[in-house]
């Protein structure tokens, strides 16, 4: 990367783009503030968000740095097999739709720990879930902050610490001022911004490519465009493990789940998810285009290990002068929106759990009130991963996010599926499964973070743990539940009525157990 001083005016589009996105985010967030009055507004926008707005917000929140930058970089480096990442991230929503969406909304809980406690009537399960939400949230936030550093370095030559600091501050400002209500508008705006920021440059660059077909004699090699061309059985395992992690992990991501509580009812939750499937499908058509064009115009990025910067640098590599600068500004704006929206969503989710289970607790006879506890929680939720991003080495954006998916799939997926569809789940079973899946996948993550490369089958198994850690968690949860059948909660039947019957029917659904249920 050329240092800032040498690039001089090159930095202008990047600086303008980052400033505009930041200002727009703050303005829309402040505008949403007018609507945020109660604690329920802060956590779930008082559950009145319509499907189309909510779907845009979910899309805006979900499409992170991994989607915006990581996928194109992975496709550039590793080829067709990496198409499974966006496919899995979309299919995850289909699995969520058919198995979880409506019952989760009907459960009436605000967070995953709320759901676990309401379903199983156990403070112990709640505590384990809270720890897991915070762990997954931080694991997911880390690459967002690192990606922000990368973007600013690539776009304006700023030192790596600038990105995490700016993103952290903007997210804090938004989250602490308006909570979920204002963040909903911000994130809906950011979905459309991200789509535009990838779509317009992709269209222009495709026209350029159609005109010159790239540097002569520099054709993509055949292996690269073929799936599973290398790797044999290990390659097959990695692909299927990735499929397990992404298909099943989406439902367990804290920032995804918390969005479902903002729907008015179970039917709206389903329709929202359907719109999300469409929005994601449209967006994910684009990153592979960048990956393929990068193969023609920027193969040196893959060789030098800076493939995550592909989307940001491709416009300049293919177009000289003002058009290249304008498109660079646009993709930089989109990338920055990606960090802001995903980080905000995760910040909200982690802050929600922290404020319920940590900062909102009574200490020495004193206790913070609802919104204050939430704000303190938000500061902790953002500060910890921002500092970690500054201190730890870069993992590769999509890879770190992939690990977060693996942990979510190994813990919350079994809890949600068995909790919603199986009456026999007990608190002891849930804890056994959460621990087995959490420790198994957590060990693999720690290995990836700290021990580095391992070769052969052990390396493959630790690199993509989902294919063994998810079944392990399911088996542990079912077996331990069967062994403790006398602990099946007495209200299980009533809770099933609550989860599965349409709201229009007048039925006894038991007491509203969520901690903020009556606050509207």
């Amino acid at each position, binding site marked *: 990367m050329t240092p800032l001083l040498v690039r001089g005016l090159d930095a202008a589009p990047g600086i303008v783009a980052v400033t505009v996105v930041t200002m727009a985010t703050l303005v829309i967030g402040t505008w949403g503030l007018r609507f945020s009055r109660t604690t329920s507004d802060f956590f779930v926008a008082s559950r009145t968000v319509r499907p189309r707005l909510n779907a845009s917000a979910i899309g805006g929140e979900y499409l992170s740095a991994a989607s915006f930058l990581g996928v194109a970089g992975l496709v550039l480096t590793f080829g067709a097999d990496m198409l499974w990442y966006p496919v899995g991230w979309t299919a995850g929503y289909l699995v969520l739709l*058919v198995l979880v969406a409506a019952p989760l909304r009907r459960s009436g809980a605000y967070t995953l720990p709320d759901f676990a406690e309401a379903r199983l009537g156990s403070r112990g399960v709640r505590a384990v879930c809270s720890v897991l939400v915070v762990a997954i949230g931080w694991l997911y936030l880390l690459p967002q902050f690192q990606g922000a550093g990368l973007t600013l370095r690539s776009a304006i030559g700023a030192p790596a610490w600038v990105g995490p600091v700016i993103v952290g501050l903007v997210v804090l400002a938004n989250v602490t001022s308006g909570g979920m209500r204002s963040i909903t508008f911000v994130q809906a705006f950011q979905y459309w911004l991200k789509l535009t920021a990838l779509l317009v440059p992709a269209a222009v660059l495709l026209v350029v490519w159609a005109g010159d077909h790239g540097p002569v004699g520099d054709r993509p090699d055949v292996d690269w465009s*073929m799936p599973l061309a290398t790797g044999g059985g290990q390659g097959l395992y990695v692909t*299927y493990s990735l499929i397990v992690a992404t298909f099943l992990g989406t439902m367990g991501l804290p920032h995804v789940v918390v969005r479902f509580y903002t729907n008015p009812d179970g039917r709206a939750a*389903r329709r929202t998810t359907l719109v999300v499937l469409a929005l994601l499908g449209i967006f994910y058509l684009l990153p592979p285009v960048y990956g393929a064009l990068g193969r023609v115009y920027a193969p040196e990025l893959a060789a030098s290990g800076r493939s995550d910067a592909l989307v940001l640098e491709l416009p300049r590599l293919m177009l000289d002068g003002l058009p290249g600068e304008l498109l660079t500004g646009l993709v930089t704006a989109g990338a920055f929106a990606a960090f802001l929206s995903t980080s905000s969503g995760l910040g909200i989710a982690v802050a929600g759990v922290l404020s319920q289970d940590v900062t909102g607790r009574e200490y020495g006879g004193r206790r913070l009130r609802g919104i204050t506890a939430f704000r303190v929680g938000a500061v902790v939720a953002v500060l910890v991963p921002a500092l970690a991003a500054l201190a730890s080495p870069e993992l590769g954006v999509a890879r770190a996010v992939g690990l977060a998916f693996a942990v979510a799939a190994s813990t919350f997926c079994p809890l949600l599926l068995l909790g919603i569809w199986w009456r026999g789940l007990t608190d002891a079973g849930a804890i056994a499964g959460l621990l087995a899946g959490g420790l198994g996948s957590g060990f693999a993550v720690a290995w990836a973070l700290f021990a580095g490369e391992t070769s052969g089958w052990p390396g493959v198994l630790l690199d993509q743990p989902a294919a063994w850690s998810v079944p392990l968690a399911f088996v542990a949860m079912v077996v331990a539940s069967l062994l403790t059948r006398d602990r099946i909660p007495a209200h299980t039947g009533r809770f099933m009525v609550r989860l599965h019957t349409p709201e229009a029917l007048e039925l006894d659904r038991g007491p509203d157990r969520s901690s903020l249920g009556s606050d509207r």
Partner: protein
Amino acid sequence: MSEREPPGRVRVSGPPRRRTPAARTRDIDAETRLGGMFMGSLLREQLRLALGILAVLLGTVGVLPLLFHVVPRLGAVHVAGLPLAWLLLGILVYPFLFLLGWLYVRRAERNERDFADLMGEVDA
């Protein structure tokens, strides 16, 4: 536990039935055997629908890696100028996922309507 302000409830009365509508929801509320059967049938229908959709997903999208592994020649096939894998995984899979989701939502809402009809309450 409906959150929004419920619209004015309209009783739709029909010809007399053997069971009065309220009695069925009461069976569920009282957790009688009959109520358990009503709930069980709803759960089974919805779960069968969900598993059916997932089976289609696995049988189509899910077998692709295995297919490309077993028949490597497929990787070299080009359709409309694009390698087959890119056409399938880069483009066609997304409308297909949406189609599955759309089918699911339609059927799931129909199942719930049927259940509501069974309970004797018609509610728009």
